[in-house]
């Protein structure tokens, strides 16, 4: 009996072999964002924030692949944002602050990760939440350092040594956010297809098997956790540089919940999901807030409910099933 003369026994469903042109979709999406930012100038700000949050949500997506939900991930965003706020007076260079915020986010991720990757499921979620609330309280209570809930105004920044006018600076921030979104998107995509990324997804289904392959599931999860913290930190610097005002609210648990919300809204099936989700989230927020004032949370809640009930793959899932249906 050889491999070829034995029938394939009992296969329920072959895997769809069609590959979606993710790269093409990403470029088309980027072009659409640029066009929108150009056509409606005040959207530049909204879209920059959306891209920044999308980068942070990429981190949530990584952990979701391992079946873990972090309800405290905005703490890394806060680290990046406060890095900018604290250091801008001394080091006004945005292109230095950005990697520094990412690095500090990653360092905190490493310290927390070393301990948190021992836990799974509800314990993992809640420990993240608890730690983020510790950070929130520190930011709120250490008034002398942080100005408490008033927050810190980000002082003037330079970009590669230059001090652009307001309009140019908005474009620069938008461009930076877009570049980081594309860059981290590519990295995440490559990572998820690598042995590490596939092992990460294995934590969700068969952690014992990983151990019996000689692989430390904790180390696999730690790598993903630190990676996600780096992206959180980078996103935080973008948010601080764009909004020019940093408050402890960034670390509050509702901000973390928002990231998880966006992850589910966008869908965890692709690195494009977080950006679809974040863009939709921010646009709905802006337009719904303008239309019905205080009811925008209700509208977003309704949208999420519909997504969970009818499109568990999120916006990305809806998009791909449409594209597949047409192909």
């Amino acid at each position, binding site marked *: *009996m*050889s*491999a*070829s003369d*034995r*029938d*394939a*026994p*009992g*296969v*329920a*469903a*072959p*895997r769809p*072999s069609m590959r979606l042109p993710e790269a093409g979709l990403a470029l088309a999406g980027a072009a659409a964002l640029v066009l929108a930012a150009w056509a409606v100038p005040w959207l530049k700000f909204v879209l920059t924030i959306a891209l920044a949050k999308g980068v942070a949500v990429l981190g949530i997506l990584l952990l979701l692949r391992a079946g873990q939900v972090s309800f405290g991930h905005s703490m890394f965003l806060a680290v990046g944002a406060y890095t900018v706020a604290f250091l801008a007076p001394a080091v006004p260079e945005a292109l230095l602050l950005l990697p520094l915020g990412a690095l500090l986010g990653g360092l905190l991720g490493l310290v927390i990760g070393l301990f948190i990757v021992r836990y799974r499921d509800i314990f993992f979620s809640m420990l993240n939440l608890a730690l983020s609330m510790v950070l929130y309280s520190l930011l709120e209570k250490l008034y002398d350092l942080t100005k408490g809930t008033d927050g810190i105004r980000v002082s003037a920044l330079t970009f590669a040594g230059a001090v652009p006018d307001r309009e140019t600076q908005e474009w620069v921030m938008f461009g930076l956010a877009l570049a980081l979104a594309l860059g981290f998107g590519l*990295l995440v995509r*490559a*990572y998820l*297809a*690598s*042995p*590490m*990324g*596939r*092992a990460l*997804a*294995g934590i*969700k*289904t*068969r952690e*014992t*098997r*990983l*151990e*019996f*392959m*000689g*692989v*430390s599931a904790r180390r696999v999860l730690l*790598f993903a956790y630190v990676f996600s913290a780096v992206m959180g930190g980078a996103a935080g610097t973008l948010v601080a540089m764009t909004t020019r005002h940093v408050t402890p609210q960034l670390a509050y648990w509702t901000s973390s919940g928002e990231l998880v919300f966006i992850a589910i809204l966008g869908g965890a099936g692709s690195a494009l999901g977080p950006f679809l989700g974040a863009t939709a989230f921010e646009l709905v927020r802006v337009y719904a807030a303008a239309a019905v004032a205080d009811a925008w949370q209700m509208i977003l809640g309704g949208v999420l409910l519909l997504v969970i009930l009818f499109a568990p793959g999120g916006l990305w899932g809806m998009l791909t099933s449409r594209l597949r249906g047409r192909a």
Partner: protein
Amino acid sequence: MSASDHRRAEAAGDPDRPREATRAPLLSARGLRLAFGGVKAADGIDLDVMPGEFLAIIGPNGAGKTTFINMTTGYLRPQAGSIDYDGQPILGLSPRAIVKRGIGRSFQLPQLFSEHTVLENAALAIAAHAGLWSPLTPLLRPRYREEAMALLDRFGLAPLAEARADALNEGARKLADIAMAAALQPRLLLMDEPTSGVAATEKMGIVETLVRVLRDTGVTAVFVEHDMEVVERFADRVAVWSQGRIAALGPPEQVLNDPAVLRDVIGIEPAHHA
């Protein structure tokens, strides 16, 4: 079954071959004890597994067969006793450390990455063994893809490479599970009921494939088996488990014809297999 007869002679320690007498066991368990509450899952297990042999473990449900595998692979820690592998104590080591020393296992309930394809499952095991964890190069890079396909091909699983693991039937899942263990190139492979749940028509074919692969690579195998025909044809020695103890141990023709073993332990009438 000349190959198997040969092995049998080797494992039994043929007196005409003096080298055999001094050969050290690959695995050596002494006085293993483990109780779960009042249940004695291991009640003084002594067992030597010789290099190159195929040792079958038989015995009724709940006799402690899986518990023995779990203790040997570091998944459960016995309350007393010792386990030496290749002359070194391995008790107290983690499953990961034990795997790295060369003991592999497959599972009574296959442990596959259910959302991955069969090919990805195999490639992950190969990558794990190679220790290559670059986070940016694809798992299914040509080298791993080829190696994984070759592995699947040896186990007759190549046609299922692109299927999701959770879409396989029981027999294919068992084989894939064993293939993943084999990918780590263990010297000792512990298989927990490799043929249970496999359709009767497929069973012998699967076992033949399996035995050929393992013999080719010189793996020492311990396997829990309920099918006496499989045991008779492929085992060099049989250990009969009963209530946490080894009730009988020897070549299959001897053990499987022992009326006491048949009646009291296996629970079948001697006439059936005489």
